């Protein structure tokens, strides 16, 4: 594909992510933070997010698998996931966290498990989307083009 086409695809794809609520303004912030001194900043941060989230999701799974669920602990994990997801702009994941916390407050294990499931799904979705986005970027760069800024 030629650069122009790649760039257009990129822009469109980015727009759709925002439109569908996968990403929010915070992601734009990250993009704006990226500069020449940190050309891979967004990728770096998103990678951190992936690592952290997967760890948290594992912890949550284990916590909810206990005979006596420690809801405080569960809530703490969810809280953190909420924090990191909001920091990168993973809006839908963040929204799930909010719901999840409500379930924790109610100490409803079933509801929590459902929430956990939901979060996992959303997480995988946004991960997939972002990875696609990054691949597009790489292709553009490989084709000698510049990555367009999307608002």
């Amino acid at each position, binding site marked *: 594909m030629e650069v122009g086409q790649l760039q257009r695809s990129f822009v469109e794809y980015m727009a759709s992510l925002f439109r569908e609520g996968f990403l929010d303004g*915070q992601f734009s*912030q*990250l993009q*704006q*933070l990226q*500069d*020449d*001194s*940190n050309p891979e*900043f967004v990728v*770096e*941060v998103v990678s*951190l*997010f992936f*690592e*952290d989230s997967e760890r948290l999701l594992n912890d949550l799974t284990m916590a909810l698998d206990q005979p006596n669920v420690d809801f405080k602990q569960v809530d*703490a994990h969810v*809280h*953190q996931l*909420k*924090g*990191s997801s*909001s*920091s*990168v*702009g993973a809006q839908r994941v963040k929204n799930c966290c909010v719901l999840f916390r409500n379930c924790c407050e109610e100490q409803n294990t079933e509801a929590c498990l459902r929430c956990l499931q939901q979060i996992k799904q959303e997480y995988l979705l946004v991960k997939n989307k972002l990875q696609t986005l990054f691949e597009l970027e790489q292709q553009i760069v490989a084709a000698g083009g510049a990555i367009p800024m999307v608002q």
Partner: protein
Amino acid sequence: MNLGVGSVVKTMSGASCSVSWKSGGSDKVSDQFPAGLRVLVVDDDPTCLRILEKMLRNCHYEVTKSNRVELALSMLRENRNGFDIVISDVHMPDMDGFKLLEHVGLEMDLPVIMMSADDSKDVVMKGVTHGACDYLIKPVRIEALKNIWQHVIRKKKHEWKDRDFDQSTSVEDGDQQQKPPEDVDYSSSANEGNWKSSKRRKEEEDETEERDDSSTLKKPRVVWSVELHQQFVQAVNQLGIDKAVPKKILELMNVPGLTRENVASHLQLIIFLQFLYDVLIGGNHVLQKYRLYLRRLSGVSQHQNGLNNSFMGHPEATYGTMTSFNGLELQALAATGQLPAQSLATLQAAALGRSATKSAISMPLVDQRNLFSFENPKLRFSEGQQPLNNSNKQINLLHGIPTTMEPKQLADLHQSSQSFVAMNMQGNARMQQNNALLMHMSQQQQQSSRAQMLNETNNGHVSRPPLSMSQPAAVLSRNSIVDNVRGPIYNPVSQTSSIVDFSLNQTTELQNNSFPLVSSNSGMSTLTSKRLLQEEVNSDIKGSRGFPPGYDIFEELHQQKTQDWGLPNIGSNFGASDHSSIPGTLDVSPSMLVQQGISSMKKNGPNGIAPMGGPQLNLFSGGNLLPVKAEQLPDTTYQNTFFPEQFGQDDLMSALLKQQESVGQVETEFGFDGYSPLDNLPV
């Protein structure tokens, strides 16, 4: 980037970043400020941590990040001056963010910004009440971080203004230093003074050009440490009496963060204390002179104040009161014996606020009696009779003292002055207290020298037996007064402490103090009165004077042991008691201060009896109450002058007046506006 467990990463602003950050506001620190602001960010979330780091670097801050609170704390402790501001998450595995907030506030007193994805009101409130200077909701945007430098400036400004204040002590302050303030405090700090004084200070500041933009309710106060006072004294000496205005003193002192108000308050305080002392020692004689002086100046100053009652109620009674006070005090001093050096030292330390603990405060309370046990041997009266002028001038000093002090402080000083000057028992509760104290003191007195006092002052009040006061009551009032006074003395008015301290030390130099005691005090020389009186006529009340060496109150106190001050009734309580006790108030408030004075006096070399020109102003002695002029001091252990002889009483009064003028209308928190009660003294 994977920080791993317990790692700390420090990153500098990228080389490609421009050096100076364009800030719209004032760059007080440097042209490039806030670039280079050293931020410590703590968050266990690696994603957030990385993002924050990048954002902060983009703001040209110097960023250090840590994902563990313990590590962050040890970093802060190792390098106390290595950071300007801390940003911390609330929820962290190894330690609650609020704990970190508390630690940082207490140990390093750095501004701390809390952040969390939790935006529930109670958590935010918790952050505020724990002293966070800001609370950010995640996700944090770079815009929010761009302005964090304001917290650094704000905090520094407060610290400078109230330097060393955390050492100041009062019960409330002591408490507050131990725990985070309960009330909302915009500026995080665990060592803020009580709300009232802070608010008052804020109001004061708002009135002046030194407006503080901070919305904090509380501000640390300036603690006039010995060193600071030394600088102050040096500055005054350098300027000369005529020119020692707060503004210039401030400039000379060149203490960052110190404001003109601080200096003005301190100046006022010293002058006031000196006056109190003079009056106490000088007794009736001095008071008379002050009255005369005030009368003369009545046209100059328009300050009327609420002490009218006390003063005007019964002129003679006042007189009597005055003398009785003096007598009491002197006798108390005489009677109590020598204050052990240890106690003195401790007291001094306490008074100076070094041991900002209740115990320190209470110590003087307990040993109040000892405070005035300036051993009889040390008390000396100068035989010289001072002209009336001095006392008048002294009065004038008070007159001109601007009232920039905190309400509590002023109120307490008010109390003191009231007790000194107007023991007119008119149902004034405070007076009652004072009287009670006096009573207490008198009970402690061994000698009763009421004769002269009675003669002079008696006007019917005398009949009251000094011991009419029940012991417990006396003690109670004493304690209560002490409590009252404690605040100002130890805390905001720590200045007072130091001042009095000095004065006390020099107290023994009665000789230097030309207290023109009337008949009864042959030995009392009231330098202040002498000087002031003489100069008063010619001096420019507006403040061409510096500090007259009039703060010999305490000196007089010490030296007046032989004084036979009859104790007319002070108000209702004092009657012709043994007046060996020093007036309660003196005991209480000045006592605190006196404590310091005593100890410092002991440390000082002999203070020669200075003639009119001799330095006698204890309070204006530099440093640890160093004697201004050794040669002037006769062989007494008490140092008497803070300032060299150049500062006569009249100078002091002038300075006061001048200051009063310059300060402008400072609303008087006192019941009496500055020292105008004396205005009302009939001559």
